[in-house]
């Protein structure tokens, strides 16, 4: 099982202390976390893009490049690249570059994004939501395929100029980019990732640890049916949580509450409260906050349901203070990881 951390570079005003961290300071904080995550043996450091005032990361690539330059072993990737509002050719070039400079540690996670600010920003029409994504993921994978085969590509679509016998430079290490598809649980997204033969990562942002058990089963069955070796494809879970020796659950609550209050207000969802928090921090709930033992047990319980290969945590929800995040990263690597390694075989080595 691979463990890692991811962030959107939260710069919310601290809901407990009122402190405000600047985007400049947050960039330094993120790099400090990347170095620590690498030092304590975590497998993955991810940054995802949002285009909102509370988040400092809208362009993960330069930050991932900086993180790669300051680390040795950890994989660096986009926790999500909102592919619908990107040019897949440019995305491929950027991640190929990141892969080369990091010695093959780059990963790309493509998704549609849980917020939609990037659509008007880049002139995409929300009414093309599905078609845009379908076309762009198709092109991105075709680019990777042509890279693997060391061939040129000829392609045409609706949202981008056609490519005529084009070769995209540079090519990544071993001519292959590790690509994941991120999904919030729409069955057709799982079926799509399975048919395309990419890794898949589920955003398990609350609810129960068993929520995506059927999806993981569907993914493997779909991959086999499409003729892929399902055992070579990875299933991941991205979730929220904080590891601490004592009081991590208490520490995390006001920050979790701040984000969930905002989302509930914005989307007309059920507002969070202490009861819903307690349900989700209980052993079968999908908030991974607690002691190293509690978090390890919960990840293992998730594994019983999903058989997943990677579990990554967003620890800095609404600007959890840097000292708490650093402590959490340290414990995640030094205490949670050994507990999980003792129960499960380690990382798969095969690429898709």
């Amino acid at each position: 099982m691979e463990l890692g951390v991811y962030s959107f570079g939260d710069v919310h005003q601290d809901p407990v202390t009122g402190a405000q961290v600047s985007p400049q300071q947050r960039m330094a904080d993120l790099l400090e976390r990347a170095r620590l995550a690498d030092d304590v043996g975590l497998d993955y450091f991810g940054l995802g893009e949002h285009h909102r005032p509370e988040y400092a990361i809208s362009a993960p690539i330069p930050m991932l490049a900086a993180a790669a330059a300051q680390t040795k072993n950890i994989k660096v990737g986009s926790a999500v690249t909102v592919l619908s509002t990107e040019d897949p050719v440019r995305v491929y070039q950027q991640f190929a570059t990141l892969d080369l400079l990091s010695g093959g540690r780059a990963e790309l996670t493509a998704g549609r994004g849980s917020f939609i600010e990037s659509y008007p920003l880049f002139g995409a029409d929300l009414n093309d939501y599905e078609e845009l994504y379908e076309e762009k993921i198709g092109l991105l994978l075709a680019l990777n395929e042509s890279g693997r085969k060391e061939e040129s590509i000829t392609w045409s679509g609706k949202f981008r100029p056609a490519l005529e016998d084009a070769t995209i430079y540079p090519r990544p290490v071993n001519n292959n980019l590790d690509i994941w598809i991120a999904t919030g649980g729409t069955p057709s997204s799982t079926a799509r990732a399975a048919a395309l033969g990419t890794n898949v990562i589920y955003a398990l942002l609350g609810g129960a640890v068993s929520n995506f058990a059927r999806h993981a089963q569907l993914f493997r069955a779909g991959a086999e049916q499409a003729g892929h070796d399902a055992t070579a494809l990875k299933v991941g879970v991205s979730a929220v949580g904080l590891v601490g020796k004592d009081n991590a659950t208490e520490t995390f609550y006001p920050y979790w509450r701040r984000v969930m209050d905002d989302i509930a207000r914005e989307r007309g969802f059920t507002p969070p409260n202490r009861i819903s928090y307690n349900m989700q921090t209980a052993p079968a709930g999908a908030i991974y906050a607690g002691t190293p033992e509690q978090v390890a047990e919960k990840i293992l319980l998730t594994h019983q349901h999903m058989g997943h290969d990677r579990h990554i945590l967003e620890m800095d929800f609404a600007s959890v203070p840097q000292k708490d995040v650093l402590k959490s990263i340290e414990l995640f690597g030094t205490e949670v990881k050994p507990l999980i390694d003792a129960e499960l075989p380690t990382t798969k080595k095969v690429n898709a």
Partner: protein
Amino acid sequence: MSDPTATTIGILGAGKVGTGVARQAIKAGYRVLIAASGDPKKIDLIVSVMAPGAIAVSAQDAMELSDLVVLSVPLHKFRTLDPAALAGKHVLDTMNYWRDTNGDMPELAEARSSSEMVLAHLPQARLAKSLNHIGYHELELDAREAGAADRRALAVASDDAETRALVLDFVEHLGFDAVDAGPLAQGAAFEPDTPIFTGSYNEARLQGELLAHAAAAQAELSPTH
């Protein structure tokens, strides 16, 4: 509990909600047909894993061969629903408007609820609104036997008395106290961003919320002099 009034449920949409409703309906003993757009073979695998026991069929068959048609497609696709095939059918609308996935829908501004916009497209369907104010995971997690102390209540609105009775019975069999919310216009009381949508209620409290909404709507209509 009595045998269900409807025996075959036809679900349009094999997404989170469609497969979630299918699972609960199978559990309750219904025969469940489920369709996406296009060839049913495309969703065979999804259905066999996400809702074992349900049968993947064409949309045409799901509408024609069922006693109750459940609409669980993304709301912005409502225009792809076939008004002729749904004419005279009992239809349950579970859909909600989410700007993030549905995009801008100017026609919503002219409707009192999203279900009335759907009804305008399907004028001869016998339409009810329900199951839209419960999360698809909760359909499974919150379902309880009739009489359970913590049984959750769900509202049903329709202009057609027979359809309303049929859907009330369906919701009961899925594991919830079904509360008659009255005519379809009352569906506005449990759309996103309302207390009913964002909360979880037992029967008495849901009835209270529905009455409060009706009273507020009445006050808005009355002249204030």
